[in-house]
């Protein structure tokens, strides 16, 4: 069963409170719970008791040597995972710290063998420390360092060598295509879709000719169409999460996004019933 939900933002609650039936699962940031030690763990337990959640991370810096430099952070993440019973943690194919220096965003990876070996070593170490598998997400790149492998080939190789999973951000991939950095169709044709356990969708924003992964707008129709096409090819996908971080006063757009995604997922999960209903109606 594929659950549909959204990333949890307090500012969205006024819009969601009358539509909670549209949200099977909330995605929470593990980083929100690792602060404050016992208070954070208690909050994580309470949140998990309220209903299904997934946990997303933005702080592991999987692509740099910093990934294993903060064992306390990994221990805190493990405690949150244990407290909530969430079976995997997602983060990104990127790095956000370089020798302790914070970048405040995700820098794209140079896809060469040495970088691959660094990521593979980090993923092994992180999975061992957490006690659960990682699911790694493709980031939207504003520039691409390139390399010997395409993003999909790099991701597949990390999966093959570590047993990690993939969080496919369809919107990020289409943003990369809009910015001339990849051919989304070719990437998806190469990607190991069996490894995908979750999907992210979000609306981007174009500024001065560059499309950003802004999470400020409705999910584009093209992204929903790709979801429709890909769902039958992702047998292990368990969740589709819509990310909305900005223009929260337009929360009704998220409600509409949830309805559109739920319709696609329902059609995928019950194709014969939906087809029959469509034919009858």
């Amino acid at each position, binding site marked *: 069963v594929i659950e549909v939900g959204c990333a949890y933002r307090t500012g969205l609650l006024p819009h969601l409170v009358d539509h909670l039936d549209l949200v099977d699962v909330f995605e929470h940031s593990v*980083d929100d719970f*690792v602060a404050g030690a016992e208070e954070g763990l208690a909050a994580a337990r309470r949140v998990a008791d309220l209903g299904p959640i997934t946990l997303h991370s*933005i702080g592991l810096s999987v692509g740099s040597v910093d990934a294993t430099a903060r064992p306390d952070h990994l221990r805190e993440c493990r405690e949150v995972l244990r407290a909530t019973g969430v079976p995997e943690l997602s983060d990104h194919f990127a*790095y956000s710290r*370089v020798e302790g220096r914070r*970048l*405040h965003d995700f820098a794209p990876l140079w896809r060469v063998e*040495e970088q691959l070996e660094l990521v593979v070593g980090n993923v092994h170490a992180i999975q061992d420390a957490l006690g659960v598998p990682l699911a790694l997400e493709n980031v939207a790149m504003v*520039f691409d360092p390139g390399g010997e492998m395409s993003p999909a080939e790099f991701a597949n190789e990390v999966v093959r060598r570590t047993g990690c999973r993939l969080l496919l951000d369809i919107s990020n991939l289409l943003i990369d295509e809009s910015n001339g950095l990849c051919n989304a169709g070719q990437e998806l044709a190469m990607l190991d879709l069996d490894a995908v356990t979750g999907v992210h969708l979000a609306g981007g924003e174009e500024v001065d000719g*560059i499309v950003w992964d802004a999470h400020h707008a409705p999910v584009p129709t093209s992204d929903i169409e790709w979801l429709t096409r890909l769902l039958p090819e992702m047998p292990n996908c368990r969740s589709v999460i819509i990310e909305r971080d900005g223009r929260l006063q337009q929360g009704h757009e998220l409600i509409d996004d949830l309805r559109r995604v739920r319709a696609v997922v329902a059609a995928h999960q019950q194709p014969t019933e939906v087809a029959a209903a469509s034919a009858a109606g």
Partner: protein
Amino acid sequence: MSVPDTQRLLAELLLDPEARAAWSADPRGYARARLTDQAEIDMVANLDPRGLTAMAASLAEKEARWRHFHDLGHKVMARRRADRNRQEGHTPEARHTHPPTHTEPARS
């Protein structure tokens, strides 16, 4: 080849306007002066200036936002501690909780 070396250099280009200006003036010369491996030099020399500059601007904006909320978090936690201590009749030194450490990039 050294991936950490290239990441250190990319971090400089993204975070330091002077480094970025020097790179923009002569990308290959800048890379040659700091790296030895030809593949690394080619990668840094061939970076897209428009994308790199745009990302650098975005990082600066996100860092400023992070600083704002980081400071705000400290203030909120300090006030909560003070309220709790007052309710429990403790001295301010009697309890200690860590301030929020939301220190990472915006979600993706």
